[in-house]
């Protein structure tokens, strides 16, 4: 009897855990074959855009994904949405393994995960009115049957992102960058998703407008309990909005930690370099800050360096780093790092 009770408790605990967890990505790989030849194509290489990425994202939390161009942050996002086929690994969304879910079965799942894009000029159809842009997801998912309810819902979305009711019948070109990004956010939220993937959502905006949109993201999260996967290269923006942050380099997560820990005591030399490279808007602070300048640039994902992928640029590289690839090692308290300096030999 007691054994049965025990089993029941563990089942409950498991269910509670999966309810609390919005997204889990395990050892995700996305490789692109590089082909040559016009008529007879042969594969001459593999671009390892994402190569073994794992993270978990709790409901209501924000995970920031940072890294320089080509680190695989956007590819990771597209694979989570299943807009790119994963080469290997597992994607568990709201407790369900969606790695191999068929295309037709993805549709009801996708309404729970939406995306906000970087370019507010390229991501809105210039021939559609704002109300149709925001309403399109509802139409696609068959929620536009009741005309009055549909209109009411679209107008509620418009108000929610801080646009005015009379803007509904205008076209995207009549709006500024910041307003367009609000339209993109309203479209993403129309289906009431749980997870919103934001891919560089403020980097195309003017400095004074970025703060408006960041505040909007944060207040919407509070009101609607949204979960964000927030991709950006701006470390100050990511720090502001994220609970946890994963730093990516050449297709891998090199460090993942809670926000304050990552910024206070970065463990991976790449995280350290990335933070040191960002200037702080205060000349007196700048004069005192230590400078860690890494050499060179990100190498090609077609031929990643052997051993630790960061070793050719790392100021602390050891002999071992040239040959042995460090695994992402859990250090406890939600912190993990892939570096020989911080993992037991």
């Amino acid at each position, binding site marked *: 009897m007691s054994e049965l009770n025990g089993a029941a408790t563990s089942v409950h605990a498991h269910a509670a855990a999966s309810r609390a967890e919005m997204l889990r990505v395990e050892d995700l790989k996305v490789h692109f074959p590089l082909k040559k030849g016009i008529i007879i194509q042969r594969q001459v290489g593999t671009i390892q855009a994402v190569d073994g990425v794992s993270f978990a994202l709790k409901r209501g939390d924000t995970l920031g994904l940072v890294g320089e161009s080509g680190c695989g942050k956007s590819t990771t996002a597209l694979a989570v949405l299943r807009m790119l086929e994963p080469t290997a690994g597992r994607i568990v969304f709201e407790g369900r393994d969606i790695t191999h879910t068929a295309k037709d079965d993805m549709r009801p799942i996708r309404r729970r995960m939406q995306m906000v894009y970087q370019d507010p000029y390229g991501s809105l159809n210039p021939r559609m009115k704002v109300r149709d842009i925001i309403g399109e997801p509802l139409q696609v998912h068959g929620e536009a049957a009741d005309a009055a309810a549909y209109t009411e819902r679209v107008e509620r979305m418009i108000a929610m992102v801080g646009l005015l009711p009379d803007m509904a019948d205008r076209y995207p070109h009549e709006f500024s960058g910041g307003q367009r990004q609000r339209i993109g956010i309203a479209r993403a939220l129309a289906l009431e998703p749980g997870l919103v993937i934001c891919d560089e959502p403020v980097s195309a905006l003017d400095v004074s407008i970025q703060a408006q949109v960041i505040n909007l993201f944060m207040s919407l999260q509070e009101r609607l309990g949204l979960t964000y996967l927030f991709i950006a290269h701006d470390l100050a923006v990511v720090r502001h909005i994220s609970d946890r942050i994963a730093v990516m380099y050449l297709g891998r997560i090199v460090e993942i930690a809670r926000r304050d820990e990552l910024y206070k005591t970065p463990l991976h030399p790449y995280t350290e370099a990335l933070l*040191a490279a960002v200037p702080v808007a*205060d000349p007196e602070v700048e004069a005192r800050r230590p400078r860690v300048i890494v050499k060179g640039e990100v190498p090609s994902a077609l031929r990643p360096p052997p051993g630790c992928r960061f070793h050719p640029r790392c100021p602390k590289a050891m002999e071992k780093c040239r040959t042995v690839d460090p695994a992402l090692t859990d250090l406890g308290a939600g912190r993990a790092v892939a570096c020989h300096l911080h993992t037991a030999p």
Partner: protein
Amino acid sequence: MPTPLLQVRNLTTRFNTEQGQVTAVDGVSFDIDAGETVAIVGESGSGKSVTALSIMRLIPSPPGKIESGEIVFEGRDLSRIDDAGMRAIRGNKIAMIFQEPMSSLNPALTVGMQVAEPSNLHRGLPWAKAMDLARELLGRVRIPDAASRLASYPHQYSGGMRQRVMIAMALACQPRLIIADEPTTALDVTVQAQILDLLKELTRETGSSLLLITHDLGVVARYADRVAVMYGGRIVETAPARELYRHPHHPYTLGLMASVPRLDGDAGGQLVPIEGQPPDLAHLPPGCAFSPRCGKASDACRAARPPLVEVAARHFKACFNDVRA
């Protein structure tokens, strides 16, 4: 006080557009001393790039025109000299580095030829000598294996390496002034720091002045000696860098500083954004261009444009109100 290297006085540059005449730069005045780094900071449409292009006399005409003002460089007014005279200065005494290194390099010429060209053109060096100099310049901007990379084409270089090539070209004739227009905006953060450090180090070595055009308050804080903040085609505040960050006077400067999340700031709280949108230059209000977005704007602000007044040594603001932080 020695004469400044560059004195810009009441520079006004206009463009004819479909929406009528637009004043992109409106009565801008500032100095750059020898060896000094001055930053112009502003958002899109503030007039910062047009100011830079006006100094270089690279405003496409039509539709653009330097309407009035003086650009006095080493005692000569650049706005009045003829095209041949300007060609002798451009790339020689004043060099420019642009934002997008891929589109500012010629894809059909080798990197060596492009870096050698200014010395051949301005200094009359024979090509062989100019090529030797190009190799030396590529070494100075730390392009590894410079000798063999002379024969490469721009597409064989990475983004950061291309920007190094641009810097090598700019340095070729030992210019007195280098104008860098958002030189690292297209680059990754770690590369951005490398390039700006290199630029700062080389200007320090050669004693040339640097005019840095940027939207990034952090870049300004790290590299600039003095700053001019532009908004709606005008300078709204200018001061030595430390003074500006310590005692900002203009509501726009204050607003920018409050709205940008900082690495060392308070994380997770609400940012204080500047409400509204950057101004449309074709429809500027009659008074202060910032007045529609300014919490302190009064009727006086909406009626007339505030002139720049000195509030401390070398610190000027264009605002009727006292809004110090």
